């Protein structure tokens, strides 16, 4: 059953403007927050059990409390560089309810005592960028941003920064590098951004959905948020669903919602003539689940982890029986090869190697032991780099090979596709 906490008023016309937002109870959380002590807000968020919605699922309140206790300037960055293939929830939220995000940002900035924050928005998101920019101007005019917000004595400035179109900048340290004006490359940890981030000052990077959820939590209290979901995965999660289903789109459901129900109720089931074959639950970098595994699963962090995959950013990709897995993997590898920043050797060279291998398997130009090589290369890329991009490229390979090996071998043996006979991967040559 869809449970709209964040997306409650999204269908109201004019909700993306300040007036529309205020009409449905907007900026009450800010007013409430400005009366609280910053430490209390952090405690509240911690108590709500809110976990980062960008992919890693790390506790937000915990992240905030890592900030060193000093008077250094600190920064809040909103990670709106939504590049994960299969994910489009942040765009939806920024287009339809920019003020929700902005309000969440001001509250969070107040909580971590930051005077300056940025929304780092993906370069390709031009429309959301315009909307968010307009919303910020409205907020400035209404006195929600700027000097002495609502008479509380709290000053805050918010800027939007457009990226230049790199997937890797979705990683927080790379985002910081890019924001600093450098090449968008992840930085070594330690030091962590909470200690030394943007301009070498303590920095918190949060996802759009996380910040929007902060608004809801401050409005309704941590206890109300905890009512949804499970003990460890609290609240609701926004999913962007794609694939050959009847109703693709953005849905918000409680965490720990059974996937079978999700597929049948919210997504309206598979399209006529298509059969559910596999599921990528959290954007392209998550390992794939077969239909049997997926139909037994529930959509929460723990259950996904127990199945060896991740909830990630909530980019649910539903793969039907007409899709060739070799082709799909080739497309993914092309993406990661293109997007590797080139800093660490295993990822820089490995992603290229993986793409070449998958494409030669797709074309039927390789030997059977290339499947073993593919697996070996992917396994040795895992966990060897600064950021998680090499893992993101390697995990799908390993899971595709372990679950759909027959399709790969068929491609090599028969020099054609098992499901289609003539798939896209073959057509490349």
């Amino acid at each position, binding site marked *: 059953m869809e449970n709209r906490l964040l997306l409650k008023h999204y269908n109201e016309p004019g909700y993306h403007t300040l007036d529309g937002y205020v009409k449905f109870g907007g900026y009450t959380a800010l007013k409430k927050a400005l009366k609280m002590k910053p430490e209390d807000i952090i405690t509240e968020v911690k108590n709500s059990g809110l976990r980062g919605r960008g992919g890693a699922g790390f506790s937000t309140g915990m992240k905030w409390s890592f900030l060193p206790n000093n008077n250094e300037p600190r920064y809040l960055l909103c990670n709106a560089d939504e590049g994960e293939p299969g994910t489009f929830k942040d765009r939806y939220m920024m287009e339809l309810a920019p003020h929700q995000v902005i309000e969440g940002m001001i509250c969070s900035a107040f909580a971590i005592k930051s005077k300056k924050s940025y929304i780092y928005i993906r370069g390709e998101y031009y429309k959301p960028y315009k909307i968010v920019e307009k919303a910020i101007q409205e907020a400035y005019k209404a006195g929600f941003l700027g000097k002495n917000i609502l008479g509380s004595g709290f000053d805050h400035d918010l800027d939007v920064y457009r990226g230049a179109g*790199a997937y890797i900048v979705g990683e927080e340290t790379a985002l910081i590098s890019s924001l600093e004006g450098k*090449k968008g490359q992840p930085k*070594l940890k*330690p030091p962590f951004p909470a200690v030394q981030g943007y301009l070498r000052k303590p920095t918190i990077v949060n996802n759009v959905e996380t910040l929007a959820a902060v608004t809801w939590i401050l409005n309704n209290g941590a206890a109300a948020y905890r009512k949804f979901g499970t003990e460890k995965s609290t609240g609701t999660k926004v999913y962007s669903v794609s694939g050959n289903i009847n109703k693709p789109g953005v849905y918000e459901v409680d965490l720990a919602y059974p996937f079978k129900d999700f597929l049948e109720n919210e997504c309206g089931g598979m399209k006529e003539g298509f059969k559910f074959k596999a599921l990528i639950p959290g954007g392209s970098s998550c390992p794939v689940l077969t239909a049997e595994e997926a139909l037994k699963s529930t959509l929460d962090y723990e259950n996904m982890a127990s199945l060896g995959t991740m909830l990630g950013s909530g980019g649910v990709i539903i793969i039907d029986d007409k899709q060739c897995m070799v082709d799909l993997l080739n497309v993914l590898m092309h993406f990661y*090869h*293109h*997007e*590797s*920043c*080139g*800093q*660490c*050797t*295993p990822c*820089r*060279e*490995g*992603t*290229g*190697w993986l793409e*070449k*291998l998958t494409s*030669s398997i797709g074309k039927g130009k*390789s030997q059977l032991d*290339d499947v073993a*090589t593919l697996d*070996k290369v992917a396994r*040795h*890329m895992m*966990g*060897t*780099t*600064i950021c998680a991009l090499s893992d993101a490229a390697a995990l799908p390979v390993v899971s595709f090979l372990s679950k759909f090996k027959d399709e790969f071998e068929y491609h090599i043996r028969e020099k054609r596709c098992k499901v289609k006979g003539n798939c896209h991967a073959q057509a490349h040559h």
Partner: protein
Amino acid sequence: MPKLTIDGKPVEVAAGTSVIKAAQTLNIPIAHYCWHEGLSVAGACRMCMVEIEKNPKLQIACNTPVAEGMVVHTNNDKVKDAVKWALDFHLINHPLDCPICDQAGECKLQDYYMNYGLYSPEMNQRKVKKSKAMSLGDRVVLDQERCILCSRCVRFTTEVSKTHELGIFNRGDRCELSTFEGRPLNNNYSLNTVDICPVGALTSKDFRFKQRVWFLKDFETLCNGCSTGCNVTVSYNQNGVFRVRPRVNQEVNGFWMCDEGRDIYKHTNKEFRLDQVIERNDQVGGAAVKGKPVALAIQEIGKSLSATVKKGGLESIALVVTAQYTVEEYEALFELFKNTVKSPHVYYWKNNEEDFDSFDGLLNRGDKNPNTKGLSDTMTKFGFKGTWEDFEKQATSKSFQYVVVAGPEDQSAYPDLEKKLEILNKAGEVIWLSSCKNEKFKNFKWQIPMKSFLEKEGTFVNFKGIKQNIKAGMSIIPTSLSLQEFSKGVFESMGGMA
């Protein structure tokens, strides 16, 4: 001071030290490309993987600070496998043109392949092609295919030389090292990037294709290019000296040296050297006669010196010294002049007065002599005070009959050499001691070949007063002398006059 164990050996290092440095203190080798002691940590090559107990993943040793009770393994199967694969990733797009690569023989890819690799390659796909033999500047050539993008050179230009010429452009395996447009790599420290390049991507134009490195022998000495006294390694073989590279000495030069200093070997090679005694013989009408044995020449010098002394012409004998010789040589020469010749006319020849005290902020100094401090100390010790100005005054007012000149070894460091030689021309008989040919100098009595700094032992005192020793590493001109040998020979042929 945290205590940790690396491969079962306990070690105690300062807090904040990285594991790779701690391992270095134990002489445990950890493979690495991007990490360099003199630069910041990049953590890009992923070769220095070590296993740290209680840590699920392998960690890079260069960016992991030591912690109390840490247990590190650098050599178990898991680590070996990770290093092997990291090396494989480095090599899959490597052009394998070792036959034409200057780095072959001292290439870290080759070394680590022998240590950690030794697999048969599984890469059967097309390699990425990039441009080759690109000129980056006046001294450096880049081969982008060989580059492993360790970013050492980029960090060098940003952190050490602070000239910011180099950058890594593009992404993924299309990454390319290059210079920014209109900013060639022409700073005075550019060849350090060649030294720190672990592979053959950056090569020196000067050394390029001259020799294969395995034909070269190395020996350690000091740079005599300026008063900093950088520690260097000189590579040579029977055909001469081929290159000079810096050697680590934190007190003096750190890890680096300037490009100017790389050229010091040039004036030591045979073609530039004074290789035999030249005598201007009055009997043949003042023509230059070459090839007299050195011992004979010195005997004649000694005899005529002692004759002049006996005639009571003490005032007409002068000694001019440049600061390009060792302390021991000065002592021998001054000893001869003070106690045997008993001449007080000892003058210090200072070069390029205008930029003598200049300093580029890193290493290179305007004082192009290795031993200025040593010379002035020794002169004070013997009570000599004369400078070139004094000599000039004396030489113009009354002519010296006999002038012994310990001339410069590196004549290019003496831009006003010709002018000064004109003043020397006014003196009666000039005994010119030098290691280099000087065809413009006509009015000499003798030219005696001297040893270059590669061929003699002694001490140089740098501008800070740090005493450093040089050793005789090779013999280029066998007949050449050091000042000690010269002084001894003259002393003996003067009959040991006291």
